[in-house]
């Protein structure tokens, strides 16, 4: 219990620190939101007025306090670029990114669990070789290349799935589902590469553990041993990796979102950074940090569920 209290406190602290960090970093990197808005039509007098309007003329500390106070009241501010409430847009985007990631992770698990088990069970045989070759390929191919490849195969050549773009599920659920297949596959395949390798290694590890040998000495069949001992024990390290992978996917979401023209939070953040849309950047990074910590907290909870030693710490 103490363990979890510490984890949650640490998480909150991390969120706070990251808010401070992103607040200062976005202001430290060269670039000026006013200049960005006006581009080559830059006009110094107008820029000054704009900065006042955007709340950029106070001291750093004043600006931070004003922002963080508003955040505590649920007000994330307004976009510098279009004046819309940041919270609303980020909320919409977050839901879509979560849809993208959850589906992708499910696909990833559907691929990596059987792949890991099959290759561990057939260690050294052709199945293992094939799966390992595939995962090596997946690990070395950047996600956007994989995405373009999938689009080329399924959309350009076979015309079975849309090439990208987002469809409102409220308008047409079936079309939405079809449009999600390639992004999910792209997330899933990328994720499954590392996960299935870790699962395979963990299974092989668990198979060589002393307790497995003990179970074998009890005359249990390999199947029973696998069921009761190997898989459960192999799932703990795999779970950690899945947690890290989700964090990594969260950070790398914009790559997939860009390839599939998917209006998620990653795409929004990258754009907001390049446009120096401070309120948008601050809030979305805050969301990323929270998401990352949340995912890891969930992983820890699940880990504790599997491993009593963690639970009782």
């Amino acid at each position, binding site marked *: 219990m103490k363990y979890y209290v510490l984890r949650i406190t640490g998480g909150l602290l991390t969120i706070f620190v990251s808010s401070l960090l992103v607040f200062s970093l976005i202001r430290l990197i060269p670039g000026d939101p006013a200049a960005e808005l006006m581009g080559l039509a830059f006009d110094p007098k107008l820029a000054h007025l704009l900065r006042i309007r955007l709340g950029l003329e106070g001291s750093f500390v004043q600006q931070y306090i004003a922002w963080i106070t508003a955040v505590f009241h649920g007000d994330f501010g307004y976009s510098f670029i279009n004046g819309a409430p940041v919270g609303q847009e980020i909320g919409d985007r977050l839901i879509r990114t979560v849809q993208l990631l959850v589906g992708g992770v499910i696909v990833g698990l559907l691929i990596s669990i059987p792949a890991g088990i099959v290759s561990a069970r057939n260690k050294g045989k052709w199945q293992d070789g094939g799966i390992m070759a595939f995962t090596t390929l997946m690990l070395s191919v950047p996600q956007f290349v994989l995405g373009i490849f999938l689009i080329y195969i399924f959309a350009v050549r076979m015309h079975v799935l849309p090439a990208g773009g987002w469809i409102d599920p409220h308008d047409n659920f079936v079309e939405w589902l079809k449009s999600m297949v390639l992004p999910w596959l792209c997330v899933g395949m990328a994720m499954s590469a590392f996960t299935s390798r870790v699962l395979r290694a963990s299974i092989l590890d668990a198979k060589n553990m*002393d*307790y497995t040998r003990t179970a074998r*000495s009890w*005359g249990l069949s390999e199947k029973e041993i696998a069921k009761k001992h190997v898989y*459960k024990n192999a799932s703990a390290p795999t779970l950690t990796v899945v947690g890290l992978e989700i964090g990594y996917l969260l950070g790398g979401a914009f790559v997939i979102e860009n390839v599939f023209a998917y209006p998620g939070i990653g795409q929004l953040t990258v754009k907001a950074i390049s446009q120096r849309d401070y309120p948008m950047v601050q809030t979305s990074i805050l969301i990323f940090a929270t998401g990352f910590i949340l995912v890891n907290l969930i992983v820890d909870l699940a880990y504790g569920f599997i491993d*009593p*030693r963690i639970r009782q710490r």
Partner: protein
Amino acid sequence: MNSLSLVSVRNLSVDFWRVAGPPALSSVSLEVSPGEAVGLVGESGSGKSTLGFAIAGLLDPNDAQLSGEILFKSQNLLTTNQDDYRKIRGSEIGYIFQDASSSLNPLLKIGKQLTHPLMANGGMSKNDAMVRAKELLDMVEISQSERRLNQYPHEISGGMKQRVVIAAALSRDPSLLIADEPTTALDVTVQAQIIDLLLRLKKSLSMSLIFISHDLGVVARVADRVVVMKDGNIVESGGVEQVLANPKESYTQLLLANIPKLRHVDQSHSLSFWGTNER
């Protein structure tokens, strides 16, 4: 040779595929009579554990090549199919490993680990298996046995864990118990308790015992007969008193010389001098 033998190992050779050099066992023969306690002695790498694993069928055929015969109750285990071998292992042969702390699955409750073989191989219902598991814990003299069934391995002490391992090994009344350095990883006082327990159980359950150790002092207490191994060969064997008092082979003498106070084989002392230098 001896039709009365429970186990009869004949010209057993074991060669590990992945390990270069001489085979782990070369043409070893060994007899164990019902009720007899045989001590397997030797340095690490002498092949004593390999022999134990080979008898119990715990060597992975993908890793090791076995030739010769292992007769168990006159049945050649090396020609028996894996499934039947497994059943014999489950019902007739108990095995206790060196390191109790890693011999149990850390993620499963003790009760679950004990009942699992009872249900899978002994065909017991879950309730019967639980009752039997509690009996087993009582038998290996674990206090509050009821509670222990609901605990995880990390919640109990090392000595208690080894008792659980022993209980599991004895759960199906085996006629042969192989104990591979069962006390090396334990505290000195606990070591003595475990040895005592093993001796009492061997007697009450009238099992044969193969006791593997590098520790001649402990072997002297446990075994009727001693087999000394070196580099995959048996170099000397005979009654425990005869071998220890009057070793013929220089290797045995060397082993004995490494035990400074063997002459006062007084349990509490002797155990305090040789301990865990093998692992």
